[in-house]
């Protein structure tokens, strides 16, 4: 069960919360807080599941995701998108960009866990 999860999120407290929740359940969690080099980090780390925030300094989460989906290596990477904007058009954009799951902040810890579990390859 001990998969690798990469969290790309710029809010330190949220990183800390997600890290704590996932670690407690046995996930290996890596974090990154900048959008600019996020895609490279993903490629180098090759996580089992990627948790990606939309509003990142340097580059938007949608952009990063589109790049990942265009890359054969990360084409099928399970991606859970997080956004603090709760509008329906944000969900649509996430789906179009290729998100596996979409979640609006604030989320419940159980939800995040369940999503990561579901997304992680067996």
């Amino acid at each position, binding site marked *: 069960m001990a998969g690798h999860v990469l969290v790309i999120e710029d*809010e330190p407290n949220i990183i800390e919360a997600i890290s704590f*929740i996932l670690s407690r359940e046995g996930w290996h969690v890596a974090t990154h*807080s900048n959008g600019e080099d996020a895609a490279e980090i993903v490629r180098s780390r090759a996580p089992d599941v990627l948790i990606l925030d939309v509003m990142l*300094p340097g580059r938007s989460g949608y952009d990063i995701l589109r790049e990942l989906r265009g890359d054969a290596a990360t084409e099928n990477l399970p991606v859970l998108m997080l956004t603090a*904007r709760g509008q329906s058009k944000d969900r649509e954009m996430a789906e179009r960009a290729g998100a596996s799951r979409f979640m609006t*902040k*604030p*989320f*419940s810890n159980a939800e995040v866990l369940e999503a990561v579990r579901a997304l992680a390859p067996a």
Partner: protein
Amino acid sequence: MTTLNALAAISILYVLFLFAVAFFAERASRRGRANWLRAPIVYTLSLSIYCTAWTFYGAVGSAARNGFEYLTIYLGPSLVLIGWWWVLRKLVRIGRVQRITSIADLISSRYGKSNLLGVGVTLLAVIGTTPYIALQLQSVTLSVEVFSQASGGEQEQTTAFWVAVGLAVFTVIFGTRNLDANERHHGVVMAIAVEAIVKLAALMAVGIFVVWGISGGVSETLERIDASSLGHWEVNGGRWAGLMFLSAAAFLCLPRMFQVMVVENDNDQQLRMAAWAFPLYLMLMSLFIVPIAVVGLDVLPAGSNPDLFVLTVPLEYGQNALALLSFLGGFSSATSMVIVAAIALSTMVSNHIVMPIWLRVNENVVSVSGDVRNVVLLSRRLSIGGVLALGYLYYAQSGGGAALSEIGLVAFMGIAQVLPAMLGGIFWRGATRFGALAGLTVGFSIWVYTLYLPSFGAAILPESFFDGGPFGLIWLHPQALFGISGIDPLLHTMIWSLTFNAVAFFVASLSSFPSPLERLQGAQFVNIQQGTGGARSWSQGSAEAEDLMVMAQRILGSADAQRLFLREARRQGSDTHLPAPTAEFLQILERELSGSVGAATAHAMVGQIVGGMSISVEDLMAVADETAQMMEYSATLEAQSQELSRTAAQLRAANDKLTRLSVQKDAFLSQISHELRTPMTSIRAFSEILRDGDGITAEEQSKYASIIHDEAIRLTRLLDDLLDLSVLENGQVSLNLGEGMLSDVLDRAEAAALAHDDKRGLQIKRDRESEQVWLNTDTERLSQVFINLISNARKYCDAESPALAIVVTKGEALTVDFIDNGSGVAPEAQDVIFEKFARVSDQKAGGAGLGLAISRQIVTRLGGEISYLSGQSGAAFRVILPLEKALAAQ
């Protein structure tokens, strides 16, 4: 002896005959094929209404009493007509061109449309004409009496009553059929022309019978005359001249004469013929007067009424048919006068009294033209009834005595008072409304005082009046003003009233100034074009129709115009494509045209073509009014269309702005959502961790609790900022102005901003010397701005050892610069940092991005400005505060 019934039957038949004549003439005129109606001879004969029953019967009576004096009554008008070139032609042309409807209208029009004058002349006319109408009723009654032997007051009154009613009906039917602008009545004129022939024929027949039938020849008759008292009758030169002048004046001024002579006149041709034919007619009328009088005095018993000789002489000789013809002649004289007088008076009463009142009362009623038309017709009809009722009442009241015949001259005298105003008006441009009023008033008053009232005798005025003058003032004696006595009362009145009338008119005109309209009208009347009018004959009917067609095509468009003309031609039963220019057709055409060019313009155009009328000043003014209205209307339209496009542009701009605002609002809401959800996410996540509780160290527990705490504070601050900004943006904030030292404000701000500056250690460099400036401002708010700027430096300055220099400069305004030693704000971001949520660096600093937006709002409210200074070593903000509120330290 002819029975009364036969007489009544013949009278009724005769009246029916007149009805028929009038009816067919009217119909012919409507169909527009009645050039003969405008024949000069018809016009000439219609002038014969001058010879009323008073002349028909009374001339003989007058001759029997006063010899040849009766001739003066004929000579006056003859002179006027023979001299038509000087006065009549001008009068008639003015009437035609100005479309004058009555003598009151003439005076009123000439003096600037003065309704007061119109009313005055109308009243004068009614007062002057009423006894005259009574006289006609009396003459008919007397003549009936001659036949009926049986005489009684009741009988008399009944005859007069029915005659009055019959005349009213006839006049209403033929006098108010159409409301032609010209007020022409072809039917009535034709009937009068026929009556003119009847009365001339009757008088001639009686005369011939008297000369050849009774006397036995011309020479025998002359012998008889020589033998009679008439042959030795002395001519009173003064009275003759006076009577001639009076009859000439009356001929011009009498409402009925004005009606037939001026209003019914169609062209100069008519006048040209009347100039010689009417004096001839009068001569024929007077030819046998003296023989009849002489023979009457000879053959009839003494004491017979000479006024009825024309009837009684034939009857004496058993010539019933002749007597009947004579009766019809007298009847004709009476009826024609009454009819025309009623038409003329009703026009005046209706136009100058009833309509102005009606219009004033119904000022607010939207008047449809047909509506007004009906009112005018109704008021005419009522006026006719009123005039005849007045005449009848006058007759009934006066009892039909001999006084009535004298009243004819009295009435002449009254109406002659209009003469100075009329002649002055058409020959003298200096004549004014005031002058006319003065002259009329003075003349009328003298007439009433010296002639009208005395004519009623003691019934009205006290005896003493005629003995020693009023209040014992002998010089005010009504029949001997200024002590000049021994003159004939009529002459006396004429001299004094007309002299004072003329003098008052002249003096008042000279001493008053005419209004512009009066001036224009005066010029129109006095300088009436001598060459125009009347040259065209109405026989050019088809040419006129063609002209009308050409005009109509220009205005209505050729298809519409042709359709209209064809339709009307068919309706008239014509097989050509041009209808005859009948009054009805012209009216229709005018109405059609007025839809396009306005009523006044249409009227002027049609009048120009049909009547050969020149366009009057009034027409031009009306046209100008219409044009002005149209121009105003189109200007309004243009303004409205400009207004519309302006409004459309404004709406477009407003719409763009709203769209922009809507987009901004969406972005703003999205931002707020983000800013709120982020701290809430942490709070929720950690609170769930704490709630679940398993496997957390005490250290972690306390750390997470403090995260929740900090995030809650962050949320609160965010909400505070949002509310603050909202209040500032709406301008709802009230400033708390007060005195404060700049250095104090900075001290407070520095302390507050660096309170949490635990590790980074931002160095603040200040020059306290320059900060000694007293400010009159909201120091709390200003300090809020400074806190924000210092905090920003603390949060975002990326230098190794961050430092902030605060530089105060005093110039025209107070400048406070905040310059740090970091890398500054990227040039592309400098424009947006003052916008809401415009965070440009990473979000570790934890601001919501509202600080600079709030700061800018505050500084603006304080009357200053805040901006980013580019080109400095680090991030640099400049706050400028107005110095009128910043006082230098003492």
